[in-house]
């Protein structure tokens, strides 16, 4: 329909040429980090690898992994490869699971980030004439500023609302004619909920047609629910702060997230063994940056669980795709020895029309047994006066969860609004066992 590319030369580059480009960039990256970072030099030494050992693309597996732990241990800037007066910007992650982590950018790094998003936003059909409402947080979080620069680069109009103040967001959306919004999927659901209370229909009373949603794992079923209830197209966006911030989205075909291969080399591994899994199998995403200079990444374990797809997309872009993020290695909960991802629970719940868009998973221990409780909200439109109907709804949710998860979950029906809403990343799991 809109065969438009931001950078057609790169985006449609024949795969062999792309690999050649990656190989060249990998070689110079390894030399660069070795020469500019004591941290990487030491790591290479421990792994017994020299820059000259990296000749072919497949040699990347000789390089050691890095992880969030390395970032924390070298806090604040021990993994940087440039003098600090070359840094044009810092972003800092919230540190919900430990010490905060600091990322830094040269001007070139900011430009690379912006280029990546310019390609991505163009691939979903946005450009000049669009009004993109950026409802990700601005400031230390990468989401707001990242999308802001990317949207400006393609000539769109940016409405930098940031997160929060939801009623005002909806008024501005109407008054200034936002055609796209960037935020977390849970915040978009909340915006829709507030709009309904205000008597505003996103479908009929706004020009919104695209949502660029991410920064937390979400499911295909949630996408369907968002699209059906608001009439917009919801696109998945991916990127971690260590990689720069949000960088990649699906194209207009909505079938996997295109990872620009000239900018990042990706692998999907078994988090336990560190070995690569077959294409099409789920595993942990590992990234190596190919055009990032202040804070380059070598085989960085993102903690995000996904599936790699090397088949070429019908949109004409030759770059590999990953499936939506299925969960995180650190948000996987183990209940009675069984691995449970919140996204699995979500995909079950979103198929059941009688329950609302919000849910919470609570894991606790009763005696020797783990007990998983899933809280879901009853919706007014389907609320039945009969206890029996409510009980059978609760049983049905439990039955469907058991089918998918293979464990019994207690289902608790709660009042609408009882589950806390979030303007950023939603907290879906409360694990009481650690306390």
């Amino acid at each position, binding site marked *: 329909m809109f065969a438009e590319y931001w950078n057609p030369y790169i985006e449609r580059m024949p795969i062999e040429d792309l690999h050649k480009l990656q190989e060249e960039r990998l070689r110079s990256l390894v030399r660069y980090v070795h020469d500019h970072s004591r941290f990487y030099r030491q790591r290479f030494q421990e792994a017994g690898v020299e820059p000259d050992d990296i000749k072919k693309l497949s040699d990347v597996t000789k390089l050691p992994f890095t992880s969030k732990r390395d970032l924390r241990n070298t806090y604040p800037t021990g993994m940087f490869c440039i003098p600090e007066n070359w840094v044009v910007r810092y972003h800092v992650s919230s540190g919900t699971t430990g010490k905060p982590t600091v990322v830094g950018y040269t001007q070139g790094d900011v430009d690379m980030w912006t280029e990546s998003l310019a390609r991505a936003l163009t691939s979903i059909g946005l450009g000049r004439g669009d009004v993109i409402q950026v409802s990700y947080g601005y400031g230390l979080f990468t989401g707001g500023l990242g999308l802001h620069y990317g949207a400006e680069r393609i000539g769109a109009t940016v409405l930098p609302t940031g997160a929060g103040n939801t009623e005002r967001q909806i008024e501005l959306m109407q008054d200034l004619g936002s055609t796209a919004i960037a935020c977390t999927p849970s915040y978009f659901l909340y915006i829709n909920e507030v709009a309904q209370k205000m008597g505003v229909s996103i479908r009929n009373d706004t020009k919104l047609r695209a949502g660029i949603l991410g920064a937390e794992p979400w499911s295909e079923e949630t996408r369907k629910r968002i699209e059906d209830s608001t009439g917009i197209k919801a696109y998945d966006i991916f990127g971690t702060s260590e990689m720069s911030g949000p960088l990649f989205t699906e194209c207009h075909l909505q079938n996997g997230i295109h990872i620009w291969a000239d900018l990042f080399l990706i692998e999907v591994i078994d988090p336990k063994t560190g070995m690569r899994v077959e294409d099409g199998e789920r595993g942990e995403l590992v990234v190596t940056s190919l055009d990032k200079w202040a804070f380059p990444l070598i085989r960085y374990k993102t903690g995000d669980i996904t599936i790699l797809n090397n088949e070429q997309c019908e949109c004409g872009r030759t770059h590999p795709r990953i499936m939506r993020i299925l969960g995180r290695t650190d948000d996987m909960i183990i209940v009675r020895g069984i691995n449970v991802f919140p996204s699995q629970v979500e995909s079950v719940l979103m198929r059941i029309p009688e329950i609302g868009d919000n849910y919470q998973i609570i894991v606790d221990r009763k005696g020797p047994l783990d007990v998983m409780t899933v809280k879901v909200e009853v*919706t*007014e439109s389907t609320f*039945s006066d009969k206890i029996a109907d409510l009980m059978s709804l609760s049983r049905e949710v439990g039955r469907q969860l058991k089918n998918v998860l293979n464990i019994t979950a207690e289902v608790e029906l*709660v*009042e*609408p609004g009882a589950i806390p809403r979030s303007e950023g990343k939603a907290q879906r799991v409360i694990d009481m066992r650690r306390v």
Partner: protein
Amino acid sequence: MEGIKQISIFAENKPGRMARVARTLADASVNIRALTIAEAGDFGVIRMVVDDTEKGYKALHDDGFTVSETDVLAVEIKDIPGGLYEIANTLGMNNVNVDYAYAFVTAKAERAMLILRVDDIEKATEVLSDAGVRLATREEIQNI
């Protein structure tokens, strides 16, 4: 004759939920005629008949409660032994099932009333009327 509507509210089984419902109705100056709570573990359903159903429904809905309206019957019970039997038997003989029921007595009107939720409201109305049982109208409930 305009039928009687009951308000049902979904409520979590937690301290203070009932108070919130009651306060919302008090603030809206809605008077409760009869009330019952059916509980099922973590949650319950509060059912009530009020003097002004529209106003009560709107006040609760706007306050964020999950509310629904249900058609019910309000029948007058004779305050003598066998009063309830007459009604229940009439419905049973005619194959009308009672989903649930709750009763109240009004001092002012000196009447006992039974709120009935049945599976076939038209048939119930017909067979009870034929049996000489008096059914209250909406106006009567409002003006008790």
